């Protein structure tokens, strides 16, 4: 199998998307209701795509595993969304946003995609405002912006610390509007368990109704996966409990390639872990780094209260190491810096895995009220969780797995290697390269969902297809496969909950495929994951009863896919013998500990092909070309 | 007329109607209380102030309306309000009970005690009103002497008996309970509340309730304690004479 063409339109980068739009085929308004599109996921990407396609007149069936489409994980995004509107009059532009994103991603993304993303960013804000998203406003009523890690302009739009929630509720309500108009149907508490291919085209899905346990078949003319990221493979992450890789992984097993799976983002500002029992880590928005200063005591093992440590005995390591960006260094850099100081024994908190994020100076300078206005709800949330008051004592933070830059390989039209199967949002390998800048995931999910997929999917729908019905043998086979996977999970009948295996595997992943990786560790991880997998299949227990509400079955099923994904991530990390963005191979670093890229060998996307449970995955490379940015060592000093 | 039906059929519409009728009833109560306070002018010779007032009520706008016309109009509005108020309340109540599974844990989460007993306090007030009209309007409860048009005389006699005083004071407590939540509630229902105003409105509701309750209570208490003297009208003398005979 060869990697198909990425279908990037010819011409100068500024014109590519317009060129594509001008030439794509259209479906007439009267014919649209003849086509049906399945959208898996109701996060920002899924809800916006479903609402937009339904509004155009296509029939849309949308699925999510939560009890309401409003609860998709996008709801948790806090900090904001980027757009090159230059309201702050700083000379920001599409080109600058493009450039920052390319550089932020350590030159491991496709130029054409990133440019389009930057170009569409403005429309997203307009769209969201029209839906009633209450972005913060300046006095005078104009939209407010702030700055975020990795950039020197204020282009981040926000709704207090609940930007994701407000954007999602906007997309959700647009989708509910379409449900009311009869163009879309939302199936909540339904989980996609398999993809159905007919004549090599994606023509439907097998889903499990999580309330009744019934296995259902749904046929369509195209399928869009907007199933989110897989960072929960680390068990402890900032993702929601239910976030999983199942939909993408099942597509992968049918031939959709998985690109750059090892690129994961470890977010620098999360509340540190406090105990074994913990089920997830809570992110504190990166926007806090706008006003908070990050430090650790200079003396190892200094156990004075942070407020008692005088300034000269504090190590403001980001400000010292990266004077230009200081506390606003990009995430991969800030995270690794925290790991380094903690490895050196300077870490604080019970586990020694924590650094301070201090607002003392900001409060002194700007006043309590201003800080409260900016971060009040985050401070409250922090206090709720830890019992400490950040107005009085510095926050404690530590990096945590947060975002998957890798995902299903897609071309410029966001189509995977399976015709008719599209992947959008965090589920695709997307536009962020090896590291995502803050506030750009929301931008990408919505660019994909509102403005790209609705056109590229429509374009695809003009092609030839036979009508299919759910009684087709392909559906039968897929359903049988799903049933037998469930039988396999239920028949193990051991004594250990899926959560236990998940936790074990998460620890292995974090230790060996986390903020820093090396060949030896990755090899070890592969062995350990395989051992956990064996244990899983010999000692798992799920509650009896497949034809009913059964959360332990849902969980076990997701973990079974994580176990396979974890392996692939390590394999990918092993093969990429360079350091770039979130992927830091210890063998490849500069003398002062910065990432060392190898552009000659690795300026490319690696997309993996599935070769069966026993077979080894096969890599395919898509070379990356750079015509509009200069490949440079990424410096934030 | 359809909109009116829709309005009445929705929970929000019905609740609004309950609030509007409640407001009318509160309005009446205030007027009634002020009217009653006329008795504080005392027996006042041949025509006690309160008797004059009662007569005036019936003679208002007389050339235009027949005798007691305005009074009857008011009575129709009042009766209508009470009927609508109670119908609305009962319908809402059955709907609300249906919305709640029967095994609902009855924990109160800061809900005021008054708000939880509106139906009971309201129904007891209704019982009182019936009794009260039988006593002072239709003059049917003749435990103590009653005379048409002789309000002061009627009140004086009734409130010489401790049990009437107790019944009226108890009724006033119930009215107070109903109004303390009711007055704040109607402001909220009518959408006049706001976070900035809420505290003020809550205090205002309590204050108005106190004014109404105390205003009413003065009458029986002052009669009972003898501060307000015996009536001196002809009817009184005649009745007293009859009584002693």
């Amino acid at each position: 199998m060869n990697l198909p063409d990425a279908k990037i339109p010819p011409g100068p980068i500024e014109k590519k998307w317009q060129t594509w739009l001008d030439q794509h085929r259209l479906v007439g308004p009267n014919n649209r209701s003849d086509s049906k599109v399945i959208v898996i996921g109701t996060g920002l990407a899924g809800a916006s795509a479903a609402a937009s396609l339904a509004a155009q007149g296509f029939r849309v069936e949308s699925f999510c595993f939560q009890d309401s489409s409003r609860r998709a994980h996008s709801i948790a995004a806090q900090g904001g969304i980027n757009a090159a509107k230059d309201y702050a009059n700083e000379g920001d532009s599409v080109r600058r946003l493009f450039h920052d994103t390319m550089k932020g991603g350590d030159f491991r993304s496709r130029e054409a995609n990133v440019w389009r993303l930057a170009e569409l960013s403005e429309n997203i804000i307009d769209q969201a405002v029209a839906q009633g998203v209450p972005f913060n406003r300046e006095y005078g009523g104009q939209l407010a912006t702030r700055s975020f890690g990795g950039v020197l302009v204020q282009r981040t739009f926000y709704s207090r610390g609940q930007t994701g929630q407000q954007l999602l509720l906007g997309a959700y309500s647009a989708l509910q509007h379409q449900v009311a108009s009869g163009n879309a149907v939302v199936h909540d508490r339904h989980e996609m368990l398999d993809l159905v291919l007919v004549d090599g085209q994606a023509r439907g899905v097998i889903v499990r109704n999580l309330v009744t346990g019934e296995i259902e078949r749904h046929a369509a003319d195209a399928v869009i996966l907007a199933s989110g990221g897989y960072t929960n493979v680390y068990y402890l992450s900032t993702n929601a409990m239910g976030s999983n890789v199942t939909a993408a992984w099942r597509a992968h097993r049918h031939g959709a390639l998985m690109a750059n799976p090892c690129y994961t983002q470890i977010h620098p500002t999360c509340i540190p872990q406090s105990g074994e029992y913990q089920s997830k880590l809570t992110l504190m928005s990166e926007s806090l780094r706008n006003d908070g200063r990050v430090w650790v005591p200079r003396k190892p093992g200094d156990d004075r209260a942070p407020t008692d440590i005088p300034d000269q005995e504090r190590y403001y390591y980001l400000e010292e190491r990266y004077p230009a960006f200081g506390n606003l260094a990009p995430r991969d850099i800030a995270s690794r810096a925290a790991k380094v100081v903690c490895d050196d024994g300077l870490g604080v908190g019970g586990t020694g895995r924590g650094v301070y994020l201090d607002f003392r100076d900001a409060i002194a300078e700007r006043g309590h009220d201003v800080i409260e206005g900016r971060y009040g709800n985050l401070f409250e949330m922090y206090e709720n969780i830890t019992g400490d008051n950040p107005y009085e004592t510095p926050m404690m933070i530590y990096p945590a797995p947060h975002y998957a830059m890798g995902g299903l390989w897609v071309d410029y039209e966001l189509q995977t290697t399976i015709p008719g199967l599209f992947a959008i949002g965090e589920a695709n390998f997307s536009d962020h390269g090896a590291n995502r800048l803050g506030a750009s995931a929301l931008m990408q999910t919505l660019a994909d969902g509102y403005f790209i997929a609705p056109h590229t999917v429509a374009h695809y729908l003009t092609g030839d297809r036979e009508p299919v019905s759910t009684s087709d043998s392909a559906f039968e086979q897929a359903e049988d496969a799903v049933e037998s996977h469930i039988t396999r999970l239920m028949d193990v009948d051991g004594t250990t909950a899926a959560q236990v295996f998940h936790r074990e595997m998460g620890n292995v992943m974090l230790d060996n495929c986390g903020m820093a990786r090396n060949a030896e560790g990755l090899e070890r991880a592969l062995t350990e994951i395989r051992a956990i997998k064996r244990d899983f299949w010999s000692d798992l227990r799920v509650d009896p009863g497949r034809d009913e509400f059964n959360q332990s079955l849902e969980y076990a099923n997701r973990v079974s896919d994580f176990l396979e994904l974890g392996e692939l991530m390590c394999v990918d990390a092993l093969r990429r013998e360079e350091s770039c963005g979130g992927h830091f191979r210890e063998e490849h670093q500069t003398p002062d500990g910065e990432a060392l890229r190898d552009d000659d060998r690795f300026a490319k996307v690696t997309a993996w092909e599935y070769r069966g449970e026993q077979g080894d995955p096969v890599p395919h490379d898509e070379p990356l070309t750079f015509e509009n940015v200069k490949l440079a060592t990424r410096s934030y000093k | 007329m359809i909109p009116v039906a829709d309005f009445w059929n929705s929970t929000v519409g019905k609740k609004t109607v309950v609030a509007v009728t409640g407001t009318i009833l509160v309005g009446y109560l205030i007027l009634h209380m002020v009217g009653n306070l006329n008795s504080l002018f005392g027996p006042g010779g041949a025509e006690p102030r309160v008797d004059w007032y009662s007569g005036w009520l019936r003679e208002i706008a007389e050339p235009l309306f027949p005798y007691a016309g305005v009074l009857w109009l008011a009575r129709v509005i009042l009766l209508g309000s009470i009927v609508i108020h109670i119908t609305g309340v009962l319908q809402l109540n059955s709907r609300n009970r249906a919305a709640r599974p029967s095994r609902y844990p009855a924990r109160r989460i800061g809900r005021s005690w008054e708000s939880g007993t509106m139906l009971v306090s309201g129904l007891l007030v209704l019982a009182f009103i019936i009794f009260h009209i039988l006593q002072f309007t239709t003059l049917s409860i003749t435990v103590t002497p009653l005379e048409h048009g002789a309000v002061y005389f009627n009140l004086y006699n009734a409130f010489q008996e401790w049990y009437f005083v107790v019944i009226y004071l108890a009724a006033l407590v119930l009215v107070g309970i109903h109004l303390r939540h009711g007055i704040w509630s109607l402001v909220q229902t009518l959408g006049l509340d706001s976070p900035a105003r809420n505290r003020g409105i809550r205090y205002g509701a309590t204050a108005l309730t106190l004014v109404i309750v105390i205003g009413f209570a003065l009458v029986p208490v002052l009669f009972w304690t003898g501060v307000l003297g015996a009536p001196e009208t002809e009817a009184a003398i005649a009745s007293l004479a009859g009584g002693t005979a």
Partner: protein
Amino acid sequence: MKFKLEIWRQFETGEEGHFETFEVDGIDPEASFLEMLDQLNERLTGEKRRTVAFDSDCREGICGSCSLVIDDTPHGPRQVTSCQTYMRDFEDGSTIRVEPFRSTSFPVIRDLVTDRGALDRVIQAGGYTGATTGPQPEPNSMPVAPEVQERAMDAAICIGCGACVAACPNGSAMLFTGAKVTHLNLLPQGQPERANRAIAMVDQMDQEGFGGCTNFGECSRVCPQEISLDVIGMLNREYRRGRLGKRPKDPPAMRAQ
């Protein structure tokens, strides 16, 4: 820490439920309530007993999935979501009662899991602006005073958890519905559908079998987002204006400036 848990067990919708008692030990005070239940479930799995079903997803108080009535109070004692309730808030050795959110409109699916689809249907009735995807006006051409944005945001942060319904002695969804109507009706973008929105949403709310509001105020006291009762006043007002056909008057704060 050690607790005795009385947990509501119900196999499926319509079935009679009952309380089952469990003891848990060795609980870290910093564990969240849901993590405590996770631990219980891991143990039950080992004992080959059926685990306790409960909803959760984000576990940071924003998705609105978690929905436990803890000691007779929706979400528990601290007016935060169930997932943000920590065991340190309970007395060591105490007995804790755990139930699902109860309302006729929220049928129990299993144990502590309910179907809150009725809230989605209330949104379907009118909880949106009519804007479909496509070119939109430049946002700064319709300025919104920060005070108005703040008020809209105070309402818009509702997480749709349904605790207000579970707390209300009338099973009323007025706080939820009021929050959405307040959010959209305050903003210039929400004006075209303004009059109709409140009517349609209230009618749907009634059809779903939610009770009416008698101003108990308990909803707001359990709401993890501290949505103010004011939104109910706003809903009443907007409904009346819409229904009685009066052209809605813009509140002064909302005028473009």
